[in-house]
């Protein structure tokens, strides 16, 4: 009896969500059709898995120093060699994945909500609210990103947390602009006029009708920006403003390893590759998502 009830419930659930299910199926089909997107997706999945399971995957502890084994080239025991303090580079890269991911996610966790909120309000209401928000955004965007991040980071004090805040502050205007642009075009569309004719409040129109349509552009941009975030964070670490030793941060590894580039090339090079592959993966994935979200590609959209 219970089995019947749960079967019925599953069937009715499937019926009610059959549209979403076929949408997801179509998305997966389109992803599979694009080899580059698959590569990007794979790289990012690897990144995420490595980050989550770092304690189980890493052969050694990332911070323990073995001063007797300093500057050792790649070997069976240390597949990527050891650095100037005898720490296993492979393990540091593995743990570094988590650090990188944390930076990217926290920056976006600040920027996306902030940018969307300000962009929606500016775009929908226009007038002086729009002017104020956009002028403030202009001020932030007037500075080259790295310089601004450095200035804010230095002012707040050099550590990882402040780096993330600094990067977030340099990037929110992009999302605000994007959200505003989307809002400006969406609010003219007939279904929004229809909601007004029904008596729907402005707040509800913004949140239930306009916001969901901004997502895909913003997610694409966020994905493509992941690479930028890592780059700037690495740059900040490189200059001593970001992660502090002994944190296994890829940028920091390059920075402290740059003196050894000639004779112990493995010290800065492998972290560099890690950044390269991560940025590459996110770029491919972002491009892929953008193409897939394109309504012209999807069936049924006229």
């Amino acid at each position: 009896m219970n089995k019947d009830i749960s079967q019925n419930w599953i069937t009715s659930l499937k019926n009610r969500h059959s549209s979403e299910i076929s949408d997801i199926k179509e998305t997966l089909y389109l992803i599979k059709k694009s080899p580059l997107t698959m590569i990007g997706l794979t790289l990012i999945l690897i990144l995420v898995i490595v980050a989550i399971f770092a304690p189980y995957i890493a052969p050694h502890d990332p911070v323990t120093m073995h001063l007797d084994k300093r500057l050792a080239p790649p070997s069976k025991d240390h597949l990527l060699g050891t650095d100037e303090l005898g720490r296993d580079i492979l393990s540091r890269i593995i743990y570094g994945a988590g650090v990188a991911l944390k930076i990217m996610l926290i920056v976006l966790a600040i920027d996306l909500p902030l940018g969307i909120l300000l962009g929606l309000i500016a775009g929908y209401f226009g007038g002086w609210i729009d002017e104020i928000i956009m002028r403030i955004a202009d001020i932030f965007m007037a500075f080259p990103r790295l310089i601004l991040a450095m200035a804010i980071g230095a002012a707040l004090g050099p550590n990882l947390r402040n780096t993330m805040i600094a990067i977030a502050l340099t990037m929110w205007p992009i999302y605000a602009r994007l959200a505003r642009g989307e809002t400006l075009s969406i609010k003219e569309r007939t279904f929004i006029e229809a909601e007004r004719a029904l008596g729907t409040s402005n707040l509800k129109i913004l949140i239930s009708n306009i916001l969901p349509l901004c997502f895909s552009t913003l997610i694409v941009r966020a994905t493509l920006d992941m690479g930028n975030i890592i780059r700037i964070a690495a740059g900040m670490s490189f200059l001593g403003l970001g992660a502090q030793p002994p944190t296994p941060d890829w940028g920091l590894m390059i920075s402290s390893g740059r003196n050894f580039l000639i004779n112990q090339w493995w010290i800065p090079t492998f972290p560099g590759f890690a950044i390269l592959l991560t940025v590459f993966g996110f770029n491919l994935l972002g491009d892929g998502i953008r193409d897939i979200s394109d309504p012209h590609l999807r069936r049924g959209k006229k």
Partner: protein
Amino acid sequence: MEELIKLKEIKKYFPWKKQKYVKAVDGVSLSVNKRDIFGLVGESGSGKTTLGRVILRLIEPTSGSIFYHGEEIDKIKKIDKNLRKKMQIVFQDPYSSLHPRKKIKDIIGSGLRTHHMVKNKGEMIEKIENFLNLVGMGKEHLYRYPHELSGGQRQRIAIARALILNPEFVVLDEPTSSLDVSVQAEILNLLKKLREELNLTYIFITHDLFLTRIITEKIAIMYLGKIMEYGDTQRIFKNPLHPYTRALFSVIPRLDAKMRSKKIILKGEIPSPVNPPQGCRFHTRCIKKIGDICENVSPPLKEIEDNHFVACHLYD
């Protein structure tokens, strides 16, 4: 016949570039009785679409008065929710009038929630199912997205969305222009049926003259923001008085060669509504132009026969 809506000298000017205005609606007065199917007919630039929205106060009039059940409603600062319920609209393009990422049940149910017309989710689903039925669609569509439906089906959803609020009148803005001809017949017959069943009043905006003759009972023929001819549909078709109306009737394509008369091909293009001609709006293209009076004085609407008004100096 109770008068439902009355418009007095409604004007809507849209600001355009420096100091100029698009005079979309330039002094329109008309009245719609309860249970009328009133047609607003015209070509592009006539102002019929703008007027439709001004009646609902989706767009605010620049000047003039709107009376609803005898009460002036244009002066109220923000149109109140209860009034919104009473007047609804169905848009022309079913492909853009439904939110692409919302399910049908949420699209139709939106108004129910806003106006607190149902107590719980169960009641809402039931009511939506009833209206889906009313517009000829099954409840399997509740959980679908608009892109899974055809144009005709989407338009039915749009109609359900408007009618579920139990309005008194509905503005139908070219509701079938974007649909295939065979689907058009279905939707129009549905609208006629619903008018009977739900005691509705329609304001039917269209550019299709033969459609107007089949569907509407009273019409206003608009040109560049003003009404040229106004009154009982059949009378106007039998005896078109305004030169513009006559020209229009002569050029609509007909199936039967015998029914075609000599075409009055209007010279030139429709003038820009930013700089409409002075006096009678139509004088620049009118073959029956009298002279100076047409260029300087805008003719008022005059009743020539019972329920048949014309704005033309030929009938002064």
